[in-house]
């Protein structure tokens, strides 16, 4: 192992840990909240089972507002909220709040798109069997769109990693921030390159897993 990696081993390991925490929480948020939000964006549309012009516009606007904020300003803007939720606005835990919110907005769009590709006939079959909205979602929509949902999540996770690199701003840490602070600002180019290699490996692993899983579960 190159000497510089040994020298910074502790910092590197903890920054990897920070990235995992930040991205992990984002993934959770994407699944627990982004998925429902995206599902509602789909179901509230014209012609869908929960068609509701007003609710759709409101939800759509909310997602757009989050997506409109320059990320840095979103972080700042959310400070009071973060402080309320986490107790502090700095550090890795605090950094997860804006990341999670961005994650929800980001993934919900990809969910909406994946659901739009479910064939109409499948929805009709569900409706004709008397499925409730919940059943339509869980037993039909998610089943039929599952490979798209997994691929979308993969794309989102990789974006979360990219967003997490900006979280140095509030002391979030992480590999990307480490690369920027030590590698870029302190001109340790070799260290920076190693960090980038770690990130490439991480992203490559995630993409590989996502692609493979989505192919395995796609029976269409």
């Amino acid at each position: 192992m190159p000497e510089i990696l040994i020298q910074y081993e502790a910092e590197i390991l903890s920054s990897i840990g920070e990235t995992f925490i930040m991205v992990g929480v984002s993934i959770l948020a994407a699944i627990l909240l982004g998925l429902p939000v995206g599902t509602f964006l789909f179901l509230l549309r014209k012609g869908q089972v929960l068609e509701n012009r007003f609710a759709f516009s409101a939800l759509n606007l909310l997602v757009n507002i989050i997506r409109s904020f320059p990320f840095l300003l979103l972080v700042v803007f959310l400070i009071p909220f973060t402080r309320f939720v986490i107790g502090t606005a700095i550090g890795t835990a605090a950094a997860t709040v804006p990341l999670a919110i961005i994650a929800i907005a980001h993934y919900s769009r990809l969910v909406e798109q994946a659901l739009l590709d479910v064939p109409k006939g499948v929805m009709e079959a569900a409706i004709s069997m008397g499925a409730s909205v919940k059943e339509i979602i869980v037993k039909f929509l998610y089943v039929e769109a599952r490979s798209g949902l997994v691929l979308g999540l993969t794309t989102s996770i990789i974006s979360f990693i990219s967003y997490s690199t900006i979280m140095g701003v509030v002391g979030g840490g992480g590999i990307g921030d480490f690369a920027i602070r030590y590698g870029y600002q302190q001109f340790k180019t070799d260290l920076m390159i190693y960090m980038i290699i770690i990130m490439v490996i991480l992203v490559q692993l995630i993409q590989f897993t996502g692609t493979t899983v989505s192919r395995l579960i796609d029976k269409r």
Partner: protein
Amino acid sequence: MTVQVFKAIIISIVITLHLRERGFFLIKLHDVSKSFGRFQAIKSVSLTIDKGEIHGIIGASGAGKSTLLRLMNLLEIPDDGEVEINGQNLTNLSSKDLRQERKSIGMIFQHFNLVANKTVYENVAVSLQLASFPRKERKSRVMTCLEFVGLETFCGKYPAQLSGGEKQRVAIARALANSPRVLLCDEPTSSLDPNTTAEILGVLEDVNKKLGVTIVIVSHEMEVIKGICNRVTVLANGEIYDTVLIEPSRIQMMDNSPRYFVEQLTEGRVIADA
């Protein structure tokens, strides 16, 4: 094949025992109209389908048969008119009650509409799940229905791995699974060979006779209509041209060996075996 028919009969008896007494059903359309854009697909149609009847709908391609059928469970919302099932006006029901009502209306779609990411087994099982069919009996019920259509060995396959006829049979099994009280069938045998067709029609007749299920069948095959229906509506350009009462000629069962095809082909005028 006779073995299978026998099975099917046994099975229907089992279902009969399984079910409580259920009233016969009837479907009424009052002056129903449906347009797609400027094109009027159904023009003020009134039609009453009696309890326990097997009602055929026939007509040229594009006459409006599928649309008419889809109006009966409100998959198409009528622009005008009312749809009544068993005295209940579907058009006025709350969405919850409509859902409940739909659980007792089975539907076989012209294009099957199977869930591509569910196995054959799961495609059939899902309708039981939706109707909160007792969990323990689900498996045996699904297998029973798959046996009806001769696909008991196909449980683990996905629709993309099935032939056209196999897909159609899964769709039939799915519609039958939940012991519906009304069965709407859109060309249920269009992809099936004559033997399988006869078999399926036999199952439908049994279901009708033994369980009093009201059946509406859209078909372009004269034999199918003639072989099973009590009354037939002839549709033309979105209007009822005529309604004809007929005496269904009990469908003759044939053995499913390829020999049958050869016999049929060569009957009377054999030229040569190649």
